[in-house]
């Protein structure tokens, strides 16, 4: 068990500055997820923690000890790779035992640990098979098994589920979570899938172009995104955005845009009021909109024209045109809206988001 600290970490590949001034503190037993689009520097950060990539500047500490110049084998970590990286010429047993053999464990102990891990992962029937005789899910389990037999201080996962089909991915996600709860080992997990990040992470780090955008627990990222990028990246379907101008009249603050005129609720008026007369970006999550009833106040409604109706069973997604922009509203499955219908959508005033148009930071 260990804490991991990343201090002012930078990585440059020739001209490309891949990781920019990353600072993170990963608590003991924490499951931290790095998430972001491809090329955001998340895998490079993980590889630097593993010791597979040299550090341009900054430092990495595992349990208070600087490991910058330690070889990967001396960092007491285990890593699971996207393509599993199973040794094709060895049996499942030998794959799992390799790390222990290299560390000169005695035979009985190796056998005990491999059996134990195989039991946890349900792969004890395949111990004598070669990796090529296994299915994708089984290979994934062997790769996990190889990591857990070592009882390392830190687990590193590099998109371990992205080679699996959708159904198996959901199943393995749950198993990974259970496994972490059972073992309690500190884990750093890299993924580009925000659903994986939200479901697995105790805390999630959103990265973009080498910069950390926000660190927080999943609900914090969802409810209080630090900027427009995080707001758009976290949540599915993604948050709707529209450009509005903030105006103050009749003693209230209003957000006005093409086809939109919303009264900014009192609890936000202080923050948003500071931007009076300026353009800002309004953000509304699809689930914070519903078809308006007569009792809804008109100053919290948006007029929209339905373009596409997607019936998902538990909800209906309405793709609607609001002025020049297209928005998605997730509405009650009993809604009867049809294509080309003109309707009023009521927004939840407690859950409006505003972002500065220039800095993109949350207002």
């Amino acid at each position, binding site marked *: 068990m260990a804490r991991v600290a990343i201090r002012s970490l930078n990585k440059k590949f020739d001209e490309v500055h891949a990781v920019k001034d990353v600072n993170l503190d990963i608590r003991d037993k924490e499951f931290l997820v790095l998430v972001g689009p491809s090329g955001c520097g998340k895998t490079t950060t993980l590889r630097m923690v593993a*010791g597979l990539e040299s550090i341009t500047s900054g430092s990495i500490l595992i349990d208070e000890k600087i490991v910058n110049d330690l070889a990967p084998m001396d960092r007491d970590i285990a890593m699971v*790779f996207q393509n599993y*990286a199973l*040794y094709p010429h060895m049996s499942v047993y030998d794959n799992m035992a*390799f790390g222990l053999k290299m560390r000169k464990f005695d035979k009985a102990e190796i056998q005990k640990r491999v059996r134990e891990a195989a039991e946890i992962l349900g792969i004890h029937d395949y111990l004598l098979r070669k990796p090529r005789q296994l299915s994708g899910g089984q290979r994934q389990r062997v790769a996990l098994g*190889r990591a857990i037999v070592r009882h390392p201080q830190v687990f590193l996962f590099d998109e371990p589920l992205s080679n699996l089909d959708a159904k198996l991915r959901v199943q393995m996600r749950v198993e990974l979570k259970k496994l972490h709860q059972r073992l309690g080992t500190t884990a750093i997990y890299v993924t580009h899938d925000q659903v994986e990040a939200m479901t697995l992470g105790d805390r999630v780090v959103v990265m973009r172009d080498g910069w950390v955008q926000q660190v927080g627990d999943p609900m914090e990222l969802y409810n209080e995104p630090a900027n427009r990028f995080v707001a758009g990246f976290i949540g599915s379907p993604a948050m709707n955005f529209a450009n509005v101008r903030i105006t103050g009249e009749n003693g209230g603050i209003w957000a006005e845009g093409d086809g939109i005129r919303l009264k900014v609720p009192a609890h936000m008026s202080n923050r948003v009021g500071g931007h009076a007369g300026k353009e800002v970006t309004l953000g509304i999550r699809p689930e914070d909109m519903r078809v308006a009833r007569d009792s809804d106040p008109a100053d919290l409604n948006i007029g929209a024209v339905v373009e596409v109706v997607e019936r998902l069973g538990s909800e209906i997604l309405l793709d609607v045109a609001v002025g020049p922009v297209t928005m998605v509203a997730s509405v009650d499955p009993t809604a009867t809206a049809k294509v080309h219908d003109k309707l009023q959508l009521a927004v939840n005033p407690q859950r409006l988001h505003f972002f500065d148009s220039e800095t993109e930071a949350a207002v």
Partner: protein
Amino acid sequence: MIEGARWRRWVFFHIPLTLFIVGLLFPFYWMIVTSVRPDNELYRPWNAANYTPFWTLRPTLQHVTDLLTETLFSTWMMNTMLIATVSTVISLICGLFAGYALSRLKFPFAGSIGTGIFITYLVPQTLLFIPLADIIRNFHLGDSPWALILTYPTFLIPFCTWLMMGYFKSIPKELEECARIDGAPRWKAMAYIIFPIAIPGILSAGIFAFTLSWNEFIYALVFLSSPEQKTVPVGVTSELVRGDVFYWGELMAGALLGSIPVAFVYSFFVEHYVSGITGSVKG
């Protein structure tokens, strides 16, 4: 497979394939027939009444016996075997490490060194033997197996390096990274993970190198002079062709016996060899 009418399969598949196989195998057949044909049939004029060029009714092993007793053929075989084996082993070891370094380690000019090695392979032997002859003379290695054991790697090492480089590149680098995280220093990751996976590649490089040195002619002709030092290709052609007299029976018997070890090596490793040519092992 060719689809459609029956005649199409004959015209585009069966007939061309048959012609190809006959063209490929006929020289071997000719070699075998000639080596077991008695002398009086071999030198019978083409317009004689009982002239049968494509078969013989009275096969004999006389030429093989003559080859083994009257000439130094068995010595040549031993020389060739020794030279081919030792130079192959030297080249494989060098090629294995050089190929690994060039494909896996990051160091300045790795790419241009790789290309440079390939270019040395392209220098024709007919040019290279002139300076090499000078070197062999200076080191007093002429007329000994060492002359060939040390010169064959000049073309075998670039060949093995290039082949192994390609093979190592096809092995995912995560395997090695995983081994290094698992606790193996680089040399152990190399010995326990990468080299075992590369066995098909190593075997193909080895078979190729062995065949190239077994069949090599120019260096063997230039650097060896006494009959008991010669290799099979040089021994057979220089000792069994006397002026304008060709001992065809013995020549063909020598060629036949000389090709057996190579054929044996190929057939023994053919499966590995094919997978070595066509690519790596996938996890």
